[in-house]
């Protein structure tokens, strides 16, 4: 089974991960669990029976809508500055899952550049969703 997790909240640019996953729910991806997480440690809730994991999150950057993909493990993750509310960030949650032996063999992070000061990222929602959908479908053989 494949799991796609949108990380963030309901607000502003931080909502882009949730909105993408909500759009993906309308596209008929088979054998896929599409869920939302607010705190990174919640990622650990959704790993049972998951073989392929996709995480969709906002990142701060100048080019709103630019999509970055990072496959776990990747040394550049350690160099990035992750913001989190609750004590453990996204790489930390993945590392914890790895240590506990519950991390799926294939993990991809999708980071969407957003400008937090510009509020919602609705303008880019359709395009990034489509890009992620195409790549997920192709790479995972859907």
């Amino acid at each position, binding site marked *: 089974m494949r799991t796609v997790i949108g990380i963030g*909240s309901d607000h502003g640019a931080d909502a882009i991960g949730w909105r993408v996953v909500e759009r993906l729910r309308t596209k008929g991806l088979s054998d896929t669990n599409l869920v939302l997480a607010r705190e990174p440690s919640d990622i650990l809730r959704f790993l049972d029976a998951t073989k392929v994991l996709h995480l969709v999150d906002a990142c701060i950057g100048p080019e709103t809508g630019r999509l970055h993909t990072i496959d776990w493990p990747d040394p550049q993750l350690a160099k990035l500055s992750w913001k989190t509310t609750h004590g453990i960030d996204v790489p930390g949650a993945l590392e*914890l899952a790895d240590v506990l032996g519950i991390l799926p063999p294939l993990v991809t992070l999708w980071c969407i550049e957003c400008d937090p000061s510009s509020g919602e990222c609705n303008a880019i929602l359709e395009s990034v969703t489509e890009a992620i959908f195409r790549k997920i479908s192709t790479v995972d053989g859907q």
Partner: protein
Amino acid sequence: MNDSNESKPSESMRSIRVPILTRVEGEGALLVRLLGKEIGEVQLNIYEPPRFFEALLRGKPMEDVADITSRICGICPIAYQMTAVQALENIQGITVDPDVAKLRRLMYCAEWIESHVLHIHLLHAPDFFDCDSAITLAKKYPEEVKRGLKLKQIGNRLLEVLGGRAIHPINLAIGGFYRLPRREELAALIPDLEWGLQNSIDAARWLANLPFPNFDVAYDFVALTHPDVYAIESGSIASSESPSIRVEDYESHFYEMHVPHSTALQARKKPNDTTYFVGPLARIHRNFDLLTPLAKKTAEQIGMTPNCFNPYRGILARAIETVLAFEEGLRILRSIRLPSRSRVPFEVRSGEGVSATEAPRGLIFHRYRVDDQGKVEFAKIVPPTSQNQGQIEEDLRQLLPQLLEFDDATIAMDCERLVRTYDPCISCSTHFLKLHLERNECER
């Protein structure tokens, strides 16, 4: 990640910076000034911009208050929602159906489970095992950390069923719930809670023999009390001098004030402007005899007494309250009769009302005034962490004389550890603490 810029004591003023203190919630800084052997200023410096929720609520329909206040905290949204809704129900003269009240208590238990288990396993326990993070702890104790994660998942699931979703639940309404859970949804939770009860007891036993520092503080423990049950969602307020303060009189006994070094208000107790302590240790102190049977038995087995004044043992208090939340949750699930209606209808009336409940981190107080259209005219929200801030500074002031002979990195680490015992939730936006330590070794 602690990025310490360490330095040895010298004759001149010294500074240490820890840019980010991990494993706490929110963002702030700590300033310590040492003047030789004397402790100078000790300031918990919260620099996050205020979010003005109280002003934001003005003019809003009271039906929106629960959804707005739940956004104050991603870890304890139920505490904010429940306290707000109950205050508004007091204004409207609503008494909810008894079984709705039970479901609300069950919902609050879910939040205690989620929050306590997160803090115990991912934020606090690493301090006692010489681990710098939950990841390091998981390498040493994988089964215990897995157990903690599963316990938290059960809390999340319980909240999903009752609140509509685990993240910022949406089901709490003035007068009851928007939608009652289905009987089969509740029944399906019982096996998980049975597993959770046994495993939360095992978790408490795992923590029993941690190397707790010898550090007792003469706290003024402030918590809700109730004559019949362990107070969670209702009760009167008890402090050292006053065993039963009506919630309506909270502001006659406690007040908030601005301090120059913090964007968050600090609370003090009248009449002598003293600090006080809210949270699990205070609740157990005030309500030990009303712990549920297995929670009480576990407390006795692991040496948790009602007169524990050591903040480091707060992890045990959280473990006991996790057992209580599972036990109480099971009792409610096994006995609940779904009410015939999800909420009590009411006609809007103007007025003012208050409520206080026990958030995972301690007492929370709300006061609202609404007009005859049901619009909010005034809102006041006093969260637990603002009440504990002054006490945290007092604790640090008491701890620091024991640390003066150590290097700055050790002092920084020990100060962080003490702050973490409070499980402070400074805000829901980012990380927490920079430590700025200034030493002046010159004789005074």
